[in-house]
């Protein structure tokens, strides 16, 4: 049994959980259980999100700090997740083009995370200390039970420092759990998914050769609708409806 998880809080993604569940029914044939960690449990697949870190949250400073994703890295917090050792997390704003079964066939010496191949690594290096331009993206994470517990423990131990310092979860992961300067480093926790698996609707595919924006790439497994700010938020399903495909 595998566990496929998503996380939802607030009202921004109303209806997205069910649509993700339906996408998985179509594109995942392995034996799995689907769960949504949420602040407002309502459906059979919902699991109550903890609130332990809420009081560290500052809406101005932490507007895009998706710390709630990190609770699931301590699977023991959730009795519902006591079965199975394989986990896959998907953001709600991902579109599945093709079967995701192969994500469960990856070697799991290290957990996997999206490598944003659309990033210019020179820009990432230039901006490393500025906490912007990270080459990894937490929209999709694949791990085995316990592998990401060090992240949970690290946040638990350094909550005030981490909430104060990092504007996004990806910045935090990039500084502590991924070696952007040596991506083959076997000591880093995460490995980045290979080219050709994911692309970004708003940012492109592979820098510099395939950077067309707002382009459907049906040969990929997943499309991310990762975007930067609330000001530029666009509803993923409204975009998809406009494709006429």
């Amino acid at each position, binding site marked *: 049994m595998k566990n496929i998880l998503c996380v939802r809080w607030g009202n921004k993604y109303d209806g997205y959980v069910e649509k993700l569940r339906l996408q998985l029914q179509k594109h995942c044939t392995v034996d799995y259980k689907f769960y949504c960690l949420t602040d407002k449990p309502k459906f059979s697949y919902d699991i109550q999100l903890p609130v332990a870190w809420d009081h560290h949250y500052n809406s101005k400073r932490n507007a895009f700090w998706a710390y709630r994703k990190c609770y699931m890295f301590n699977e023991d917090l959730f009795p519902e997740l006591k079965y199975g050792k394989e986990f896959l997390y998907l953001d709600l704003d991902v579109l599945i083009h093709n079967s995701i079964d192969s994500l469960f066939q990856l070697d799991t010496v290290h957990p996997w995370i999206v490598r944003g191949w659309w990033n210019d690594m020179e820009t990432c290096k230039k901006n490393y*200390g500025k906490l912007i331009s990270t080459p990894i993206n937490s929209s999709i994470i694949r791990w085995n039970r316990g592998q990401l517990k060090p992240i949970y423990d690290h946040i638990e131990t350094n909550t005030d420092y981490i909430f104060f*310092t990092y504007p996004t979860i990806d910045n935090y992961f990039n500084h502590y759990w991924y070696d952007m300067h040596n991506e083959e480093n076997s000591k880093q926790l995460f490995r980045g998914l290979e080219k050709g698996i994911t692309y970004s609707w708003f940012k492109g595919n592979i820098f510099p050769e395939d950077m067309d924006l707002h382009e459907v790439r049906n040969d990929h497994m997943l499309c991310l609708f990762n975007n930067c700010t609330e000001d530029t938020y666009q509803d993923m399903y409204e975009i998809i409806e406009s494709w006429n495909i």
Partner: protein
Amino acid sequence: MEHINYCPNLADNWSKTISSVSKLQPWAVERVGHSMNKSQLEGKMWLGTELYNIHPAGFKNAVIMGGWYCQFLAEILINNNNVNFMCNYDICEDAKAISYKFNKRFKASGQYLASTKNIFTMKLNEKQTEIGSVDLVVNTSCEHMFNMQRIREKHFLESDPLYVLQSTDEDRFDDHINCVNSTDELIEQAKLTNIEFAGEKTLANGMKRFMVIGR
């Protein structure tokens, strides 16, 4: 102090660094340029002057927080302020590599070490602890990071080093995440109680810098 000593060894290290960065790390060229501008030198010479006025005898073992390429600071602390050993903690791998080029002469003499450890959450570099107690902590970019109180509590409750801290009230940059409006605020951020110097200075770039020295 009114200048740094542009001696042949320094000239050799710095000119080779700039040549190397241009060829091998072109994305860092602009930032290296910024690190060497008039305001950067003003701020570091101000530090060197006031620290010397208070403690001319020098220091054995210094921690530098977020020292970036550290070309001015290493030259000033080692040759003006009689610092025997310093470790520059900067999380950026590029900064570490470039700082070693700028400070090749000090690395060779065993006086300069660079580390990418984030000592807000990690231990000090082993080589630094082998040398003995830290007696000086310098952070000229407090606006870029969490309160220095954390560093005191995590590493230095027993050794009680001297702190030299600089920050600014310029908050229009996204990476200025912890600005202050006064020296009192900077003192409070670090929970310093024994203040030996507190002052402010407007640098050539128009930015106001605050500096406090104390324990």
